């Protein structure tokens, strides 16, 4: 299980699409002299005023991004931006569903040896890094196979402290030894990257051969992950620790301005090799206009702007003003946007605003620490808690009824999703049953149950109300609960050190393979590994190991469903909900087909400038 990113619920809620916003950057700077008072004046030098027929995408990020160094990023927001600058070997097809991997920097899909251990990948010729000071005469040089090797070694380098190492831990021949070697180096710089790693070889500049210790079918999806995007050694050496703010990739856009707490501006990279809009998609795409640009060279946009606005409300207002191309619907404005029948309200239609919904590959739950003396041994107690939670009510109160209940742990979008899962009734709201089970539970516990603790990874109002909701539900069936609100760091620490009873969390898959979710119950991955539940079931483990080495296939999906049922039966967590993204966009925002796994899609977006100017007139008439 590799790419599950634990994201706080609201964060994901925002993430469902990138907010987008129009921004003519005018950051006035302030000159103050305390004695004399102040003069507000000045206008930021980098202020780029939009030319009439320049095509600019206006996005919104709902959180600051941490850094733009693909080797060491885990937060979604950084990934969103970095994905426009860096490219991995493979990418998801923009239009095809079910989701399908296609080559990006690679010439074609890898040749896999019969023992599934050797991957031979041919790399596109004529791919150039973006022009940057770090190169001689600051022209971007051509991409070579060794760059991939370097990037992987870099992640292995312990001095680099990459958060992505766990992805490659004990997978590639010789890479772990390389990590061992780096331990004796004094600093990141001292590491000698020319050291051989048998598992990573480059017979020529355009061929990369990866040898695995054991079969690892997810390798392709890994190679589609931004973490494996090639980074130029020149840049790393040149910028040192500041590489996080000096991305040098091969992608269609390059970084122009990054004001950490207000905006990021990317511009089209002149050295981009050029790519083409897909000419085929799934049925219905043509009608939806997704194929209008078929075969045209991408990117369309000249610039991509992200404004960082952490509050939902202002972003929404900017969207209505036409300063943002697309947005999710803020919880509090839902009624203003949707009528009861799930249709857009007339007001929205009048604005020519379009609605897109899609299943988000995520699941949220109330998890139990199976090593906890009270909960671990007491299955009736756990299922009682699960039955005591009114998921419908939860979704109504907190998500305006727009998210589906999680009957199991695999999101509906996954091919291995089990259509009958609802009938199994694990997610039923049944207080009576819960109370019966509690009687049992007390027998097992031998006496009155102690007060249980729920940990929530936040102190905001949202979490407080969420916590209160759970508490009310459990109190209703006669369970004493105490909620503990802690900041994310504390929370993670407590979860990782297994010193927690119940915890609310969720995760979102980065590939269509549900293994992401199942791995969270594999006993070898106990905390601080992905298995935060510290759940352990030999039968499950066996199946997991079996499935792990299988290529994607119906049998594999059957296995997954079986494993899912085992988990639901043991109930190491009360699964609450999946998510459906409700995305609004203006009708000038073209080729906006939601995608659950891909981030680097800005290159496909196109702006209908005529319509956009028309909107300004429209607003006047409406007002």
């Amino acid at each position, binding site marked *: 299980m590799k790419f599950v990113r634990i994201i706080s619920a609201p964060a994901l809620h925002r993430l469902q699409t990138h907010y987008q916003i129009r921004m003519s950057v005018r950051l006035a700077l302030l000159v103050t002299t305390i004695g004399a008072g102040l003069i507000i004046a000045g206008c930021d030098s980098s202020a780029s005023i939009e030319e009439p027929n320049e095509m600019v995408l206006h996005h919104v990020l709902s959180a600051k991004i941490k850094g733009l160094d693909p080797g060491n990023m885990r937060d979604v927001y950084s990934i969103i931006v970095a994905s426009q600058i860096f490219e991995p070997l493979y990418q998801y097809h923009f239009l095809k569903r079910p989701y399908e991997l296609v080559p990006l920097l690679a010439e074609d899909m890898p040749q896999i040896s019969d023992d599934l251990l050797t991957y031979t990948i041919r790399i596109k010729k004529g791919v150039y890094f973006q022009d940057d000071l770090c190169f001689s005469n600051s022209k971007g040089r051509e991409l070579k196979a060794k760059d991939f090797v370097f990037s992987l070694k870099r992640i292995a380098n312990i001095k680099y402290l990459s958060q992505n190492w766990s992805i490659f831990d004990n997978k590639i021949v010789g890479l772990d030894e390389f990590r061992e070697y780096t331990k004796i180096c004094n600093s990141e710089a001292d590491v000698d990257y020319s050291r051989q790693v048998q598992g990573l070889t480059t017979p020529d500049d355009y061929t990369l051969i990866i040898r695995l210790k054991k079969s690892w079918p997810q390798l392709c999806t890994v190679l589609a992950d931004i973490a494996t995007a090639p980074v130029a050694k020149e840049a790393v050496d040149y910028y040192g620790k500041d590489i996080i703010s000096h991305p040098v990739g091969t992608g269609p856009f390059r970084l122009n301005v990054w004001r950490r707490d207000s905006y990021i501006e990317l511009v089209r990279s002149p050295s981009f090799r050029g790519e083409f809009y897909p000419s085929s998609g799934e049925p219905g795409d043509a009608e939806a206009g997704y194929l209008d640009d078929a075969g045209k060279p991408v990117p369309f946009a000249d610039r991509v702007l992200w404004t960082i606005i952490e509050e939902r409300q202002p972003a929404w207002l900017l969207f209505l003003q036409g300063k943002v191309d697309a947005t999710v619907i803020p*919880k*509090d404005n839902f009624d203003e946007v949707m009528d009861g029948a799930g249709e857009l309200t007339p007001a929205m239609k009048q604005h020519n605003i379009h609605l897109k919904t899609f299943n988000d590959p995520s699941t949220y739950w109330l998890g139990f620490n199976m090593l906890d003396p009270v909960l671990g041994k007491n299955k009736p107690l756990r299922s009682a808690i699960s039955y005591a939670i009114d998921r419908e009510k939860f979704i109504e*109160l907190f998500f305006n009824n727009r998210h589906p209940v999680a009957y199991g742990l695999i999101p509906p979008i996954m091919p291995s999703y089990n259509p009958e899962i609802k009938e199994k009734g694990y997610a039923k709201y049944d207080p009576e049953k819960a109370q019966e089970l509690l009687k049992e539970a007390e027998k097992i516990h031998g006496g009155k149950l102690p007060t249980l603790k729920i940990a929530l990874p936040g*102190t905001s*109002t949202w979490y407080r*109300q969420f916590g209160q909701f759970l508490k*009310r539900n459990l109190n209703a069936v006669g369970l004493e609960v105490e*909620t*503990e609100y802690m*900041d994310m760091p504390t929370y993670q620490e407590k979860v990782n050190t297994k010193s927690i009873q119940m915890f609310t969390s969720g995760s979102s898959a980065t590939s269509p393979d549900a293994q992401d979710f199942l791995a969270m119950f594999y006993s070898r991955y106990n905390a601080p590994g992905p298995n935060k539940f510290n759940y352990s079931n030999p039968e499950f483990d066996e199946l997991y190991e079996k499935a792990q080495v299988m290529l994607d296939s119906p049998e594999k999906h059957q296995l997954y469903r079986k494993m899912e049922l085992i988990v639901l039966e043991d109930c190491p967590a009360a699964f609450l909900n999946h998510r459906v993204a409700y995305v609004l966009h203006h009708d000038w925002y073209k080729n906006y087909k939601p995608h659950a796994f891909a981030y680097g899609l800005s290159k496909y977006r196109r702006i209908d400038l005529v319509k956009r100017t028309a909107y300004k007139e429209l607003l006047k008439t409406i007002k």
Partner: protein
Amino acid sequence: MSEYQQIIKTEPPKGTSLWKDGARSLRRRRLAMVCLGVIALYFLLAGFVYLAEFFDWRIGPIRWAEQAGQSYAPPSSKNIIGTDIFGQSVLRKTLYGAKISITVALCASLISIAIGVPLGAVAGYFRGFIDEIIVWIYSTLSSVPYILLILAFAVVLRDKTLFGHKLTGITAVYLAIGLTSWVGICRLIRGEVIKHKNREYVLAAISYGCNRRRIIFRHLLPNVSHLVIIDFSLRFVAFIHAEVILSFLGLGEAERPSWGAMINDARIELSRGVWWQMAAATAAIFFLSLALNIFGDALRDSLDPKLRIQ
């Protein structure tokens, strides 16, 4: 009548003792007495909630958790000031909140007085090295911006265990406030003690051989005690407001309804037009601190007109 005449204030009447005086002129200020009444009401309410919880009387405030209507029901005859997201009665929450806020403010004040007064007295009386140290401590503390200091304390105190007792919610809050806000009163007392130290009555006490503890606590402190009262009355307000800010920053009480938490919720609610929860909490705080402010001033004017605490 000349403006000059409007300005000069007639001296307070010569009275028998400081306290009798204060009491006398206080009683003459009708407004001050009204405020005192209001304050008393709040305290009674808080105390009442405590009792109710202790004896588990099933009356309004402590039944705040019950569902009293639809979620976000606007004010109506059923729920006079509406309900919150879970349909809990805002009125009950507000009443219950009195307990939290007053507990916080009270404990914080007591802590800061317990630390500040003795330190100030000792520093002022002994001077010399002890004084140096104490002054050093409080000038260090006071050179860190107050809000920052409280936050820092609150952050680190949160979820720590102290003497086997877990610092959750308000405990951490009032500890943080108390431990950081004793500086003012300490400085005040120190100054006064230095002034009084050479007054005749102290010299007299020394001359007939009182030991130091007795002099400080039996002779000096009573003569500066009114400062403590005044300081207390004015500080109390500040602490109630501090609780609001801390809850906003997620460092406050999360389990039970507190005014701070209620106002904090409004951030989400206002945009859907839910104003009543916020209004209720604001009003609750408003009247309490209004009363405290006015009463505090009256107290100061009658006990020590020259004093200027801000």
